[in-house]
């Protein structure tokens, strides 16, 4: 379905006061009571003649002079039967007015009808004229009412991580002027939750499709469009500059490893690209002087680089790079219990933690040989925690555009929420400065 075909549930732009072409009319019930047969009227032509002429007159006037469409008794359960009781319109009008009194469920609701007529005829003069009839107690336009629902993201309630980082607690700044770099497996830029989000997409020597889906998942957590009737919401309403740094086929050990040269050149391209934040949900055990040189330069250029702590806690808990470089902001993972995810690495270089277990986000629309899921799925890893922090950094840059990357990183740390598992400590190897707190960070 094209976006223009999607119904909107928000207030119409002009916010009309009245429903066009409709009037509510109440006749004096007592003018009719004594003419009603007992126990009830049948809907026959003969019954139509029971309506006193004084009551029928304003309706006849409307039919002859104002193009009256139909009269419908507002609270009669037989209103649909009235509409087909007779082919003579004037008799139908009379039956409608009669049943508005005869069928009413209570005295207070007796005598109400809705009449329809061409909008052009519904003039103040006409209303005044009908109101002047002695048989008529009330005439007023049908008030216009509309749904008060805002467009939302149907799966947003499942995004526990967004609640944990207090994303829902505050109106957050518009970060559409901030570009976040994503160096990953690519992106499905036509995904309904990512449409229009991707500013640039450099696929290097590889195909456009994100076969693995990792990059699309990360991108959704950072920047999935909120309030668009689709899927999930991302942390920041920002733009993405995407570099595909992974090949389209895995290594013989069935792992996906970055294409080293494409990766390092992408890091170099970040500098001067206009990107203010970069997300690196990748890692490896060895450090590299070339890689470190590039990260140092990015930091000096005012770019906040956010990287994943790594998922090898149960396999020796090694330092993982690039997270372990001094100039890189390092993010560990917590689970729904607000305790460290069992896989999440710990260490001296950790800056803070963010939700990383069972994180619902976007996936490419098409399945691939390397992925059974499509569109949306929950994945786990410090890869999933990192984009929460990258999105928060984008919000912060939007709020404080003149800040250096060191200032951005410091603010993210000082605004983090100390969680129970940290005890009385302000910093721990497991949680760093605590749990990312978007609300406090952008104050």
């Amino acid at each position, binding site marked *: 379905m094209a976006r223009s075909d999607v119904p909107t549930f928000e207030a119409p732009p002009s916010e009309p006061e009245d429903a066009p072409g409709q009037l509510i009319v109440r006749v004096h019930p007592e003018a009719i009571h004594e003419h009603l047969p007992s126990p009830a009227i049948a809907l026959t032509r003969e019954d139509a003649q029971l309506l006193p002429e004084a009551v029928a007159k304003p309706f006849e006037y409307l039919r002859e002079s104002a193009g009256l469409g139909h009269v419908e008794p507002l609270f009669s359960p037989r209103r649909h039967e009235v509409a087909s009781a007779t082919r003579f319109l004037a008799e139908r009008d009379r039956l409608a007015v009669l049943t508005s009194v005869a069928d009413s469920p209570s005295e207070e609701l007796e005598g109400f009808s809705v009449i329809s007529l061409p909008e052009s005829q519904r003039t103040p003069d006409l209303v005044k004229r009908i109101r002047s009839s002695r048989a008529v107690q009330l005439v007023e336009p049908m008030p216009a009412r509309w749904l008060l629902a805002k467009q939302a993201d149907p799966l947003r309630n499942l995004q526990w991580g967004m609640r944990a980082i207090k994303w829902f607690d505050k109106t957050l700044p518009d970060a559409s002027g901030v570009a976040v770099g994503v160096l990953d*497996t690519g992106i499905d830029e036509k995904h309904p939750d990512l449409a229009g989000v991707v500013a640039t997409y450099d696929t290097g020597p590889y195909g456009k499709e994100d076969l*693995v889906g*990792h990059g699309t*998942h990360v991108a959704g957590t950072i920047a999935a469009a909120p309030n668009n009737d689709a899927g999930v919401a991302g942390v920041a309403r920002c733009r993405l500059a995407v570099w595909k740094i*992974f090949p389209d086929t895995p290594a013989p050990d069935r*792992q*996906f*490893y*970055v294409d*080293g*040269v494409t*990766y*390092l*050149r992408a890091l*170099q391209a970040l500098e001067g690209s206009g990107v203010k934040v970069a997300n690196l*949900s*990748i*890692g*490896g055990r*060895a*450090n*590299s*002087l*070339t*890689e470190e*040189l590039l990260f140092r*330069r990015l930091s000096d250029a005012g770019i906040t680089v956010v990287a*994943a*702590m*790594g*998922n090898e806690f149960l396999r020796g808990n090694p330092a*993982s*790079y*690039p997270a372990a470089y001094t100039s890189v902001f390092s993010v560990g993972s917590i689970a729904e219990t607000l305790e460290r995810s069992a896989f999440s690495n710990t260490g001296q270089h950790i800056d803070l933690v963010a939700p990383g277990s069972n994180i619902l986000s976007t996936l490419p629309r098409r399945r691939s040989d390397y992925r059974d899921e499509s569109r949306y799925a929950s*994945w*786990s*890893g*410090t*890869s*999933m925690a*990192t984009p929460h922090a990258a999105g928060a950094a984008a919000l912060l840059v939007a709020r404080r555009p003149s800040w250096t990357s060191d200032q951005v990183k410091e603010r993210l740390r000082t605004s983090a929420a100390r969680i129970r598992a940290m005890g009385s400590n302000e910093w721990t190897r497991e949680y760093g400065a605590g749990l990312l707190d978007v609300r406090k960070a952008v104050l």
Partner: protein
Amino acid sequence: VKLLFKFKESAPARDRERVFSHLRKLGVSAVEPLFPDTEDDALASVFMLDTEDESLLPRLKRERAVEYVEPEVRRRLVS
């Protein structure tokens, strides 16, 4: 294996050429700049080569014009 090495930015062109010449003699056919389009001195000093000769890394380390040499590192997804 792919090796990355960086010349000292202060290393004169003749010293750099001597390293390239040495590598050619050792059978390395292609030494390429990692960032071919850069005008930045530091980045323009980084080169890469493919080799199966394990002795090449310590040999390059010993070159006076070379700041560092390292094997390409592996990075993978963290999910």
